[in-house]
């Protein structure tokens, strides 16, 4: 039987001959299980509370959760890309649009199922990223920012120029949904919440594993000083190209999700600077390199967006960005920084390095 042993500041649980220890004070929490349970249960709890207690269909609320998960899906690979390339890209939404258009066109014109458009969206996004990846080596600073900022603008213009293919603002309709509808709109949206949450979790898992690996360590050095990384014998070019390619492919998967969630895909909507700013704010408010902080910041940004939209009408964007500006000003280390110990050793990440067999 389980034996619970409360101690000062921590709880020790003895179960089946093993000892589990949990530090009570939130800022020392290291076990992600509790956060994961809350995160997984939240949509269902909100859905059940709204439908059974308040008797209303929480479609807007569920859409907000989907948007939050979408921000996580974008900001997590974006963070990894920033660390691994040592460059701040202003074009993550370009790859979202590439993935979205690939999935939508293949679904509408060739009748491919979402299971087939998923790898296609990833590979097209990754292939385009691979083709332009030398920019991570040859350009830096404002030049890199401008190049990455121009990509979504160019794609946006192409969608108007070839509106016969891309449908301009109307987009590409008749895209197959991710799953057959249940007949209950709210339930469908709840399922989409969990699909987006699953994708966000998969991204978090892979990025976390990468950052804790030897490659993550190399990325960290590249992010700090490329010349020092080179002097260690690290193949900086190779790591930059691989990171840029794979993370861009992951961002294209976000586009795939949107196309099959909405049943259509309109690039100009997602190629707008406002969406880019949301992604950048999510990543920045999370804290430098804080992958799990992205979850907190994405939900806060998405909630604030919805609250300001409902409360302030035309002024909603102004109010939203003013609030986010205030948060940026007050939280210098982001939301994750609130939970960090302010000790030197805290800066030492835990890296798992496996011996080669």
């Amino acid at each position: 039987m389980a034996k619970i042993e409360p101690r000062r500041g921590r709880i020790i649980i003895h179960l089946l001959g093993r000892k589990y220890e949990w530090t009570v004070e939130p800022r020392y929490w290291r076990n992600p299980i509790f956060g994961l349970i809350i995160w997984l249960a939240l949509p269902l709890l909100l859905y059940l509370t709204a439908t059974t207690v308040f008797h209303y269909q929480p479609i807007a609320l569920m859409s907000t959760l989907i948007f939050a998960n979408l921000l996580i899906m974008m900001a997590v690979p974006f963070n990894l890309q920033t660390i691994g390339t040592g460059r701040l890209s202003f074009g993550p939404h370009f790859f979202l649009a590439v993935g979205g258009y690939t999935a939508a066109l293949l679904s509408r014109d060739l009748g491919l199922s979402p299971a087939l458009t998923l790898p296609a969206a990833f590979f097209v996004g990754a292939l385009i990223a691979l083709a332009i990846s030398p920019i991570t080596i040859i350009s830096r600073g404002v030049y890199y920012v401008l190049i990455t900022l121009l990509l979504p603008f160019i794609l946006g213009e192409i969608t108007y120029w070839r509106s016969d293919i891309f449908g301009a603002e109307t987009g590409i309709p008749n895209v197959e949904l991710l799953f057959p509808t249940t007949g209950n709109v709210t339930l469908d949206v709840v399922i989409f919440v969990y699909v987006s949450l699953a994708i966000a979790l998969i991204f978090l898992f892979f990025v976390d594993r990468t950052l804790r690996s030897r490659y993550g360590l190399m990325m960290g050095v590249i992010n700090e000083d490329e010349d020092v990384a080179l002097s260690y014998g690290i193949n900086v070019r190779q790591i930059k190209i691989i990171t840029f390619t794979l993370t861009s492919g992951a961002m294209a998967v976000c586009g795939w999700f949107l196309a099959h969630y909405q049943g259509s895909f309109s690039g100009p909507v997602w190629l707008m600077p406002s969406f880019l700013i949301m992604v950048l704010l999510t990543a920045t408010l999370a804290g430098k390199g804080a992958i799990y902080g992205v979850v907190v910041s994405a939900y806060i940004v998405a909630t604030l967006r919805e609250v300001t939209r409902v409360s302030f009408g035309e002024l909603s964007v102004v109010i939203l960005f003013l609030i986010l500006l205030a948060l940026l000003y007050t939280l210098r280390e982001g939301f994750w920084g609130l939970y960090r110990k302010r000790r030197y050793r805290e800066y030492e990440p835990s890296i798992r390095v496996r011996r080669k067999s």
Partner: protein
Amino acid sequence: MLKISNLTKRFGGIIAVNDVSFKIEKGEIVGLIGPNGAGKTTLINLISGFYSPDNGKIEFNGQDITKKRMNERAKLGIARTFQNPRVISNMTAHMNVLYAILGSEYGKGMTMTEAGAEAIYYLDLFGLLKKRDVLAGDLAIYELRLLELARALALKPKLLLIDEAMAGLNPVEAEAVSKLINRIRSEFDLTIMWIEHVLKVLMRSAERVLVMHYGRLIADGKPEDVVRRPEVVEAYIGEEEV
């Protein structure tokens, strides 16, 4: 061990390194001196792969490495320090050395514990054990120089290129660093090429001194002979009492 043949590097109209040729044998400590702008750091940058030469050839242990990139040269055993210490300032001293070990070729097969212990060894060797948990950005210049040396040594190099290890240090600190460099040379069977402005210390430690002036190598020989040559006195040594 290192053979440089007719090495030239131009930056626009300026010839920073002009047709330089020399050899360094295994186990030597070779000093490189010259007035400011003589091309010393450019030469180190060319050998370490930071710059590509416009002309000439660099051979390391009989292998032509002229076209090899900096990371490939590091894997072959060429490590360097920088004129202005370049450490990862928001990591601790321990992490700086640890990252060097795990990032390096020989660190590939190491576990975190092994690499951590190895990093501690190098920190201890350079007297930085007490500073292991201090952020590198908070270290004093003397400690930063030592940390850079510890990090470079942790890469297990065959050739160590030191770029002004004594800049910004007082005479006592400079002497301590000099002793450490001599010690690691003998303990780790290193070959060292060392740029320095503190000539007194360099003259005592180096077995050979190369003198550069306006990108050209104007002297190569034993320290006591080199400093007496008129062209060296005129170019550089005359400015300082040796």
